[in-house]
């Protein structure tokens, strides 16, 4: 039978506020264990939470950027469950009245735009982290680090509108871009500031009724989300083809073995016994404040992509790649603002710059070659001072020394030779030294010209203007 895949995602994103959601402790990542803690986030007897206003603001911004309706009256609730990383044994979250509902985001799949519904965005506190010596299976004890306890999160729940693992990946990439654009989250999956659970089910194509779903947890990268979903889709298909039934359950992605394993069945699912959080008052949002936040939202990825295509004539693909992260788009815009040719700048940002930062494992904000310096380099190419090939060497030098392009070109004598008489002189010498190749070319072996060009470039250490070399050499032959 032909099955349709149905996927819904729950994304957890850590908000980059300075302090935690209900106390004044720092949210900084990587601090010594149990140093960013106080009686409130440790859940000691007698403490009370106080909402961090910035968290509400960030959640509203996220809701607006995801085209949601911001509820004027929302509240916090307690989600009760026992786990040692949760000091109060309840998580303060939002249940029936979340801060934002009924939004959407658009993704591009196979060149077409598809709208994915956003059910809700709600605020909640993060839990701590269990620390084991070795693995959880072999460690004889668990230690708890409460630094992350009370770090603010938003949970974004999608409608079951995604139809393939690829769409799920595109959705996540877009989500990450939007949250970074509005500057509410770092979205670093490796630091856990972006996490994702996936719900997947299959149904006969054409059927309206949803099939039985499974939930996949422990998906720690976009790739894992895609692979985990692919595995589940295949598993569901096999079970259904054999006439079996899917069991509603929560499964965990086992990256090492490339498979999902059952975590708990529906019967073992927690009864969270939600109740309204009596220690916090409801959140009443001032509509004027919402409008102010809406007005001050930055240009979002879709608008930016459209602008790059319209203003600079970039291809849809290039504009998509550049606007996938706000930092890269900012880097690009700044380079162009420094009077660099936009198309050349796009090629450099997607090419050498990306290659180098990826190899170095750094963010583009930390790129040692600033947009201003890149623009200078691009201008040297455009003016014909250096060739594109030499420019790559210059870029390498800029990356390591921090010097600007003109200095390097001058110091290393890398200026392109575009003087026809000088080039002709070298051509003549190469023709004289390589009679066999000349004869081959004249006999119709087109390839031989490549060898001659190579010899000329070798003589000039690559500085000869390649176009001039080509045309003058053909003239002389």
């Amino acid at each position, binding site marked *: 039978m032909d099955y349709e895949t149905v996927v819904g995602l729950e994304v957890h994103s850590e908000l980059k506020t300075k302090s935690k959601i209900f106390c004044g402790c720092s949210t900084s990542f990587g601090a010594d264990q149990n140093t960013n803690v106080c009686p409130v986030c440790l859940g000691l007897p*007698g403490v009370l939470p106080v909402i961090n206003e910035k968290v509400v603001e960030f959640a509203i911004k996220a809701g607006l950027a995801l085209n949601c309706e911001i509820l004027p009256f929302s509240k916090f609730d307690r989600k009760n469950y026992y786990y040692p990383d949760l*000091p109060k044994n309840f998580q303060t979250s939002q249940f029936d009245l979340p801060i934002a509902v009924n939004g959407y985001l658009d993704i591009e799949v196979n060149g077409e735009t598809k709208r994915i519904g956003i059910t809700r965005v709600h605020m909640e506190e993060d839990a701590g982290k269990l620390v084991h010596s070795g693995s959880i299976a072999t460690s004889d004890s668990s230690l708890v680090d409460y630094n992350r306890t009370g770090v603010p999160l938003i949970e974004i729940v999608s409608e079951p509108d995604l139809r393939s693992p690829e769409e799920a990946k595109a959705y996540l990439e877009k989500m990450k871009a939007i949250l970074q654009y509005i500057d509410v989250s770092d979205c670093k999956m490796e630091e856990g500031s972006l996490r994702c659970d996936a719900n997947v089910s299959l149904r006969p194509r054409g059927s309206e009724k949803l099939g039985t779903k499974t939930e996949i947890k422990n998906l720690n990268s976009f790739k894992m989300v895609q692979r985990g979903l692919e595995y589940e889709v295949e598993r569901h298909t096999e079970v259904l083809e054999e006439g079996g039934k899917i069991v509603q359950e929560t499964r965990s992605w086992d990256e090492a073995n490339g498979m999902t394993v059952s975590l708990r069945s529906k019967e073992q699912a927690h009864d969270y016994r939600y109740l309204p959080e009596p220690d916090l008052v409801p959140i009443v949002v001032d509509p004027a404040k919402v409008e102010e936040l809406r007005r001050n939202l930055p240009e979002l990825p879709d608008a930016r992509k459209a602008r790059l295509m319209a203003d600079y004539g970039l291809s849809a693909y290039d504009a998509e790649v550049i606007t996938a992260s706000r930092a890269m788009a900012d880097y690009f815009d700044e380079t162009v603002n420094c009077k660099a040719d936009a198309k050349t700048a796009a090629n450099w940002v997607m090419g050498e710059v990306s290659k180098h930062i990826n190899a170095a494992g750094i963010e583009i904000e930390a790129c040692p070659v600033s947009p201003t310096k890149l623009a200078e380099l691009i201008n040297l190419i455009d003016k014909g001072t250096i060739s594109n090939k030499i420019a790559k060497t210059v870029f390498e030098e800029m990356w390591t020394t921090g010097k600007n392009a003109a200095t390097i070109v001058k110091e290393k004598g890398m200026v392109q030779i575009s003087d026809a008489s000088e080039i002709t002189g070298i051509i003549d010498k190469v023709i004289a030294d390589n009679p066999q190749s000349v004869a081959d070319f004249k006999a119709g072996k087109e390839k031989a010209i490549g060898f001659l060009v190579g010899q000329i470039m070798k003589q000039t250490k690559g500085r000869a203007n390649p176009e001039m070399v080509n045309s003058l050499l053909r003239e002389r032959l």
Partner: protein
Amino acid sequence: MELFRYTAHQLHSKLKNKEVSAVELTQAVLDRTDAVESSVKAYITQTRDTALAQAKAVDNKINNGEDITVLSGIPGVLKDNICTKGVKTTCASQILAKFVPPYDATVVEKLASQDTVIIGKANMDEFAMGGSTENSGFHPTHNPWDVNVVPGGSSGGSAAAVAAGEAVWALGSDTGGSIRQPAAYCGLVGLKPTYGRVSRYGLVAFASSLDQIGPITRDVTDCAHVMNVISGYDAKDSTSINSAAPDYTKSLTRDIKGLKIGLPREYFVAGMDADVEKAIYKAIDQLVALGAEYQEVSMPHTEYGLSAYYIIAPAEASSNLARYDGVSFGHRTEGTDIVDMYKKTRSEAFGAEVKRRIMLGTYALSSGYYDAYYLKALKVRSLVKQDFDKAFDKVDVLITPTTPTPAFKIGEKSNDPLAMYLQDICTIPVNLAGVPAISIPCGFSGKLPIGLQIIGKPLGEETLIRTAYAFEQSNDYHNRLAPLGEVK
């Protein structure tokens, strides 16, 4: 009269006039405690050394000619669910038997800023669940008026200490009557403030939407003075009322001419003690004689208040008490794995009443039962609150008994939780509505005191204090002392 028998405002004059030093006063109260504590058992922890040091500091101020406030140097006691930095705060539970908070409750900071002397932490029903202090995880407390009867609860240790002269004033907490009922049983003044008037930061939560801290004192004047210190907005408590607290002593005027008092007929339940009923009607007559205008009012949802309370309070408690799991603080019993540790820790260290309420609350919030129990109880709560709103359209204050009967014998209701719960029938609706209420002595049944409850509008503490003061000053109940000779 012995020093430990005076009120705080009387002792303040003695300190200011240098009739007595703060150290002498504290020592007198400590000596009294040594003499009677073995029969009263009001305390869980005594803080003698710090108390004497605090008293010494006040004496230094007096000797330097510095001004002191009314509570400066006056020994008081805190219910043991109010967090004190560096001093054990047990909630009378084995699960917190060794818990020492690293921070002070807001009320404790406020008291410290007034140079009060804190002489210890008072016994209570475990986690404030109970009405007799028999549910303490350590020992029961005895009523100084008759050591064979309960002092009430859950702030029974606080009330017994003040009645026995083991402290001059006390703080209690009131979730369903836990300040007013022990104040009534021990012949004292107890005020449950409007929800949000006193910060809950540092009060170990029982039922967060109902809990309030308040004073237990020997007279209304002391009540006003303690309220002046502990009331007011606190940014650390989101449910705190963001308005300045008035000077409550300005309401100590005796003037209640034209005050409209209402008697809700539904509060006079079957099973009410005849002496209690007589005392309440007599009190109403007195108030009318003082110029108040009396009328009966109806509060039709009163009878459902108790049921709603016994859903809402346990539901919140089941969540609030989930943190006592043996992981990072409090008692732990080791187990074979984490779930086994949870089970053993909680089974061994919680008492029967606490377990009963955790089970009730967990059940009420369970999927499939939420609408039938918890949600319905919230609706009843709204109706109870509406009853008060409607009554307060007609009257300024409501007059009721604090409890249907005087204090009962120790052990009498231990095996009958429902009978125990019924003692709170007049006090519980007040917590559900979030309004303030005061209990003051209004007579005796045999040798046991009877309490009169005066209920006010939200933030109506001033009217309560004015009414209570007018009544108190026309009687001498507050001057009667617990029979010292019988306390052994």
